[in-house]
């Protein structure tokens, strides 16, 4: 009995080894030598949870060399062979500028708020490095965080909670003479040392709008996307406004959409927040899951969302104020309507790839169809990239990552539940190269390259 068990185990071992070897030689052979002149491209894939395209069934990552990423005959299957990032809901990933490290902060669940980093070693091999640390005590277990562009030194996460304040006119039991005053919005900002896995700084402060805006019931209800300015002395944080009806204190969904706002605070002290308002764009600046504003040539360029006139790219100058002379409407540049920037990324030359939807988007299985455009921040022009195939089920809402390598930008393309490819856009020439095949599974999609 004992003997046969041993035999069985040995046999299974042999079979498994053969199987694994065959699987490896088929499509994922990783040769570390290849990476010498290129870099790692880590592809992120979001598996379906309950609903096609919800991405709640786990985030998987898989890395390949930039050379393989450009090879259309190369094929990867992250859903079968990837590493599952430890996050209960779709992970918000960041990568080091050289692509050798992946940073993650777990979103929700028992480890929500835990920071971890992994050394990229190709394929499904991600080696955990550094110690475990959590930012949940400061910004909650579903933190909105982003890596600052300071040479992979710092990450920052933000949190806001708002509470209505009333004046009861000295009669606490009589509601008829109660008056809504304003919402007290408390912001928490934490900065994290990505290298040493420790907390740098945490500050809490109260956010104030103008008296007039507050009296109308406006308040900052969600914040996200901290970005460091060129001088490195201010942090910009994107904001979303909500409104209540001052007469009842109940949510008011029909109010006017105000000019886009950004919170500016001192860095690294995280003190003295002020709110700046754009005269060009309206709506939110807090983005969704991918970085929404970038530093370029001394200024910070920021996309807005939910703008009644279509998304704009806004400019914040070195004086930490919106530059209202910079008017870049995506609707106008593309000659379309209802444009909405879902994710974007400029290369070092000031030319960017923008993921967007607009009035021409079809209603796909998981929401509106997405497109890519090539954008020039200086010329304020935009061109839809037509060399990438778009299907109705091509969905970019959860899209998170582009790799900017010199003037090249790597992106992933695959409709929900269908195979796709990596594409490399040369922002200088506008040339698009179809790269490695991305093998998909039912109901799932790809959320970017890192």
């Amino acid at each position, binding site marked *: 009995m004992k003997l046969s068990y041993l035999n069985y185990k040995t046999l299974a071992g042999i079979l498994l080894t053969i199987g694994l070897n065959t699987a490896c030689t088929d499509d994922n052979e990783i040769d570390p030598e290849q990476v010498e002149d290129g870099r790692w491209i880590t592809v992120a894939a979001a598996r*379906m*949870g*309950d*609903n*096609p*395209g*919800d991405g709640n*069934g*786990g985030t*998987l990552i898989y890395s390949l060399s930039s050379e393989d990423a450009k090879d259309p005959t190369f094929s990867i*299957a992250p*859903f*079968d*062979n*990837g*590493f*599952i*990032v*430890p996050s209960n809901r779709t992970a918000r990933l960041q990568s080091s500028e050289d692509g050798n490290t992946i940073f993650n902060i777990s979103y929700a*669940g*028992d*480890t*929500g708020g835990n920071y971890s980093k992994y050394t990229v070693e190709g394929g*499904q091999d991600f080696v955990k490095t550094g*110690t*475990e*640390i*959590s930012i*949940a*005590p400061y910004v909650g*277990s579903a933190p909105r965080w982003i890596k600052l562009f300071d040479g992979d030194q710092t990450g920052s996460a933000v949190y806001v*909670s708002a*509470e*209505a304040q009333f004046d*009861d006119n000295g009669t606490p*039991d*009589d*509601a008829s003479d*109660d008056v809504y005053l304003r919402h007290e919005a*408390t*912001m*928490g900002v934490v900065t994290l040392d990505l290298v*040493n896995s*420790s*907390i740098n700084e*945490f500050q809490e402060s109260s956010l104030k709008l103008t008296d007039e805006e507050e009296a109308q019931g406006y308040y900052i209800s969600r914040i996200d996307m901290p970005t460091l300015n060129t001088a490195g002395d201010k942090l910009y944080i994107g904001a979303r406004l909500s409104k209540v009806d001052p*007469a009842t*204190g*109940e*949510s008011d969904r029909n109010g006017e959409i105000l000019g886009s706002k950004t919170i500016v605070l001192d860095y690294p002290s995280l003190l003295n927040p002020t709110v700046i308002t754009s005269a060009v764009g309206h*709506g*939110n600046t807090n983005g969704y899951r991918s970085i929404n504003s970038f530093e370029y040539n001394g200024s910070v360029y920021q996309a807005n*969302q939910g703008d009644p006139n279509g998304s704009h790219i806004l400019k914040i100058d070195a004086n930490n104020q919106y530059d209202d002379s910079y008017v870049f409407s995506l609707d106008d540049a593309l000659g379309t309507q209802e444009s*909405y920037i879902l994710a974007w990324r400029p290369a070092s030359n000031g030319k960017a790839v923008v993921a967007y*939807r607009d009035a021409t988007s079809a209603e796909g299985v*998981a*929401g509106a169809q997405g497109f890519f455009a090539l954008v020039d921040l200086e010329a304020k022009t935009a061109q839809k990239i037509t060399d990438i195939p778009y299907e109705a089920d091509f969905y970019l*809402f959860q899209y998170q990552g582009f790799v900017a390598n010199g003037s090249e930008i790597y992106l992933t393309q695959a409709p929900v539940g269908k195979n796709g490819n990596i594409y490399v856009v040369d922002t200088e020439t506008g040339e698009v190269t179809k790269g490695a095949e991305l093998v998909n599974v*039912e*109901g799932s999609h790809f959320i970017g390259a890192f």
Partner: protein
Amino acid sequence: MFRNLVLIVVGMFIIPLEMYAQTGTLSGQILFEDGQPVAYATINLAKTKNHTLTSENGWFELTNIPYGNYQLEISSIEIDNKVQQIKVNSASNKLNIKVKKAEASVLSEVTVEGASVKREIETKGFSVNVVETKEASLRSIQTNELLNTTVGVKIRQNGGLGSNVSYSLNGLSGSSVRIFIDGIPISTYGNSFNLNSIPPSMIKQIEVYKGVVPGHLSDDALGGAINIVLHKETKTNFNASVSYGSFNTFQASANGLYRFDDSGFTVKASIFHNYSDNDYKVSGRSVVVTGLGGVQTPITARRFNDAYRSTGGMTQIGFTNVKWADQFLIGVTGSSDYKEVQHGAFMTIIPYKDRFLESDAMLGNLTYAKKDLFIKGLDININGLYGKRNRSVSDTVSWAYSWNGERATDFRGNEYQYSWRSQQEGGPTLSQINRTVGSVRTGLSYSFNKDHKILFNHVYSSIDREDSDALRSVLENTFRGTRDLTKNILSATYEMKALDERFKANVFGKFYQQNTVNIDPEIDEESNEIVDDITSANVKDNGYGFTLSYALLPKVIILTSAEKAIRLPNESEVFGNDGDNVVANPSIRPELSHNYNLGFKIGTFSYKKHDFTITTNFFARNIKDRIGLPIETSLNVNDETILYENQGNGTSKGIEAQFEYEYNNNFGLNFNLSRFDLKVINRGVEIDVPNTPFFTMNGSLRYSLKNLIQEDSRLNLFYTMYFTDEFSYLVRQGTNTVGDDFFKIPTQISQDLGFSYVFPSNEFVVSFDVKNVFDKPVYDNLSVQKPGRAFYLKINYRINKF
């Protein structure tokens, strides 16, 4: 209205019911010649349908016997069968009968044919288990633990005693499973009177109906129902017990009944008290303390904010076994509980301090039951409840605490307060929900003869709900909506038996009606006054089903049943929830499910002293129009509001099986297993539902020793094993992925041991239980650890005579 009620009640007392044949009750005790009681002997009143089994102490009771002379037949494998002439000529007739012990040689061919209540329910055709609480009530066993060992039932509890519980029947869980107390939806009683708090000693039996629910349990139970049947004995008795054990767990309960034999006047009361610190040890990836810079050190911690207390009782007075009523009782049910909350759905690195929930309920109740009302064969059963129940949540501490139970320090080494100023993210709360609840259940049945019966049932339930939060301003509280919900569920059932009871069938139809009213105060633009904006939604639907049972051989029975079951959308699904930014969708449709069961019951076969029974059931559930929230997209992410919608379909398919073995009435073995597949289909894509234990097994052993230490004493030894197969919190991943371990809930095996010692007088029983003997980590939910090894001692006292 009230006056009319008084008239009816008074009328019931006055109207002489002489026109009906007089009936009486026959009760007594069957004893061996040496005075020891004869347990489980069959008592049969010859030439009538009236029969019963004696209790463990030899007691029996037969009711509704028309006055006259009879032959009483007493049989059991333990005795020489005996026939005794008796006379029933008064309301209450008593006799004690002594019988001879059977000779060893005659034992082999005596069979027990009396069908117990349990067997009778279990052979009707439903996929049902009847859990008897008699033995468990003498031990330190919670009602939920008892249910968890039942085949096809999985209990998932978020911690120790008193923590939140979810029930799953054949894979369907949450609001698909309805729970009843004596046929009244448990939502009427509220959180303080539930399966966590009611001691098994108050319960006679628990019926678990899977997939197909009989007409008399009327609610929109999509996946099944659990009905808790409280004691309805009409014999004078008194029981009391106290139990103490690990984690400072103290439980006490007492119940008693006194019946004046002459008048039938009956007083019934039961009380319970449960307390536990639940300070059991936990460890794992989230149980850490943090130091300078946020550096984490894992520790083994004791839970420090998890205490639970529940207290309650029920008292009833009235008349039992009188001419005009088998039961007429009015009374009060009162209960309250307090539960500290250590963490949210998961154990995270930030445990809660001083967050707690409180609830209480005070309900008046009325019970009326009468067999053969006006005419023979017409039975009526009325159960009513009306009262108030309240629930509150308190979370006002803003300081952060660490798993060591002390104030946590931040990365600078200072104590700190959370940005959200409460323990749970979302801000401080002192919210209070007050509900006025009412429920009336009426059952009427008529037996044409012993083989044909029709039943009509109606359940009305209403909930008026009012929310407030002391931490919100009066203005905000004023403009908060209120929700009222009324439900009427009507059912008609036809039951038949044929071929000498080898064939049994049951056909039923159910009609559901639910009215939800939303009252939202707002300011009238013209008059500038506060007016109520009232909207209401009325949902109607119907369902139907059948059961068939056919005995291929006398002891091989096929059981099959099917139902089109409905779950009506609940108030938040219809009207949304302001706090969660969910808005109304009055056009939402009910969820519906086609449920099928096909099973066999084989046994009980007896061979020499060996008895065994095998039960098995194959089941399928096909759910349509599942209600859920839509996924977040760029189109709705900034809308701030979402609404519930009918989304997709789902299926659950599987098998369950149970094996019971008994030897010589003193050794018992019970083993069961359940395995199923649960899938949902949304927009054409099918997935396995994650976070579901698909495979579970339970086993238990019992052994009785007589005359240990003392004459006439009995020692029972118990062993129970629970097995839950590994499952993942995440949907099934690819064949070669890595990192899956993070989401896995590993295979769990937990074992309990216990004994109970019945003292010779039969009045005292002492029991001792060890749970989770090998101190294995057990989880129902990802990372939420349940108690480790624990010890409990319990003393029971009971008397049946005064």
